[in-house]
């Protein structure tokens, strides 16, 4: 309890010193929320810079939708603040916040044409008819719906409806755009196509945006930064590269695609994993000699060598036996069992040039080495939650 308070004070202090610089486009400070007696958000803080795209990535039930709804003003937090462009909007109703929400089902008004939908925000603001027409003209062009402007939402494809939804929010120049699982209702092909389209569009209009999604690929592709949520708290926030290559917790490592996790012990200049010594430089503030730690590496970081010949930069782990090889198109996925106590299995992937170079078969004995890995801070995730 005392520790939690200490933490809260700490974050508040940090946020105050941060506020000295130019105000972030959007920031939330210390959000928490209960549904009944269950806590769905605990002390959530982050900010989105001008023109930046932040993705909140989490499984269902991680609280990501609640965060979005709190920022939009559709839900009230128990504690914490929502600040848009330096202004505290926590107590303002949704309609006075000037945020744009792109709902999962788009929530287009079914009895209004594309034009009417896009112009709605200006019509209810009682703008001049000429101004509304000019803005609508500009926006239908921007989202490439010129020939569909007279149509009704039910006559449009999912992707087109989504573009109308975006244009409808851009019309009133929102402080921030909030996307609620925007690709959830679409098939895989349309998804990746739309993702590129929206990314290009957002770079053009430069409105700071927050996406929520449970799809890690989507998060990595769309986000300038990604925040990984787990059961109401942020596990890690960073660039797609950071969170993928240097996950801070086991949860993040596993949530962002396949990951191998091995246990080890911290030594002076290396981590001891079984018989292997993996060289690394660790922050002495976070790690002490003798700490039991976990190391994480991706299947694509694994190198398999038949003759135990390693190149510089490859660090030997242990010999292993191939248990399964699955061909999945662009690469093959290999499951191996390490020949050491615990006999843990390891996943590796090999790209085409490699697979055609050295053929491997089930039952082959190879040496497993890795090209890069991350050492997780000891017991960090469990400590934080208490």
């Amino acid at each position, binding site marked *: 309890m005392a520790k939690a308070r200490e933490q809260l004070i700490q974050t508040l202090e940090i946020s105050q010193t941060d506020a000295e610089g130019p105000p972030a486009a959007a920031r939330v400070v210390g959000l928490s929320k209960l549904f009944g007696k269950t806590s769905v958000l605990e002390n959530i803080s982050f900010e989105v810079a001008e023109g930046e795209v932040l993705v909140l990535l989490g499984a269902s039930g991680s609280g990501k939708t609640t965060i979005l709804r709190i920022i939009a003003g559709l839900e009230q937090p128990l504690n914490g603040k929502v600040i848009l462009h330096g202004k505290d909007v926590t107590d303002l109703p949704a309609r006075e916040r000037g945020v744009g929400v792109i709902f999962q089902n788009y929530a287009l008004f079914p009895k209004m044409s594309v034009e009417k939908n896009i112009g709605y925000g200006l*019509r209810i603001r009682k703008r001049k008819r000429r101004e509304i027409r000019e803005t609508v003209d500009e926006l239908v062009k921007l989202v490439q719906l010129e020939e569909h402007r007279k149509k009704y939402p039910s006559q449009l494809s999912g992707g087109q409806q989504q573009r109308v939804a975006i244009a409808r929010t851009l019309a009133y120049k929102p402080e921030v755009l909030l996307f609620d699982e925007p690709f959830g209702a679409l098939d895989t092909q349309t998804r990746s196509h739309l993702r590129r389209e929206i990314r290009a569009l957002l770079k053009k209009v430069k409105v700071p945006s927050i996406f929520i999604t449970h799809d890690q690929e989507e998060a990595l592709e769309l986000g300038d930064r990604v925040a990984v949520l787990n059961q109401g708290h942020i596990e890690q926030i960073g660039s797609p590269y950071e969170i993928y290559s240097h996950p801070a917790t086991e949860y993040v490592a596993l949530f962002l695609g396949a990951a191998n996790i091995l246990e080890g012990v911290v030594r002076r200049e290396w981590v001891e994993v079984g018989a292997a010594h993996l060289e690394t430089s660790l922050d002495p503030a976070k790690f002490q000699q003798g700490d039991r730690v976990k190391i994480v590496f991706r299947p694509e970081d694994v190198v398999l060598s038949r003759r135990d010949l390693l190149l510089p930069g490859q660090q030997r782990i242990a010999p292993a036996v191939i248990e399964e090889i699955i061909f999945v198109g662009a690469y093959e996925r290999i499951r191996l069992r390490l020949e050491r106590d615990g006999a843990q299995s390891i996943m590796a992937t090999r790209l085409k040039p490699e697979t055609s170079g050295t053929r491997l078969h089930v039952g082959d004995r190879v040496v497993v080495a890795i090209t890069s890995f991350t050492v997780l801070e000891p017991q960090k995730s469990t400590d934080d939650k208490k």
Partner: protein
Amino acid sequence: MRHVRGFDVMRPLSIGMLVFLMLPLVFLPLASIFIFGTSNGLDKFWAALTQPEAIFALELSMATSFWATVFNVVFGLFAAYVLSRYNFWGRNALIVTISLPTAIPTAVAGFALLLLWGPYGTLGRLLAPHGFQLMFTASAIILANIFVTFPLAFGVIKPVFDTMSHSLEEASATIGATRWQTFWHVTMPSLRGAIVSGALLTFARAVGEFGSTILVSGNLAGRTQTAPLYIFAKFNEGQIEAANAIAIVLALFSFLIFSVLFFARDWLDVD
């Protein structure tokens, strides 16, 4: 199913059976109104129809039904909004109560109103000394109409509210609309079809109301006699032609309303 050289015998048989059954039950009674009413020539029919008392009865029916419809549509909208947007203790009890009047015999409904508002009624007794007499006036007819058509508009509008995505209203709010703007621009257009059909149903039902009206109106010719009461009165007096003329008008009127309901369904629900 027996097939004779690829021909389904059941098809013409069952259709024929259906029409044959409906003949004495529906088609023939309706047809006889028209056959009988026009058998003495159209000018006789016209003369019967343009009797001042007949015209008054039709006008009174239209006017009282109109006001009952206006009230019940507005009330139905409000009730549907409250009962589908908010969940509270007693919500289901309210829904059942609103729907109850359809199940109550209309004569009982009229009688109940008399017991409340009549000169010796629970409330009427208190109001009578002040010269306020609700029963045996056009207002009494409107009250009776409201009572017996109470759940009709509500019943059509509520399901539309229930299926309407709440995110439309949330979207409108985040775009910057007030509650009233959201209701007017977003919610109402989706309800248009339900409101029109609810109104037509209510009106059609109110125009035909007899059981409760005859009790609360006093059935005073030229003052509180509605079209159905006029038919009954003229029939009792043996003026079959006078009764028949009005019957034709009412029958045509309900045809009209139900054709609108039937054929305009697509228009009413354009998405």
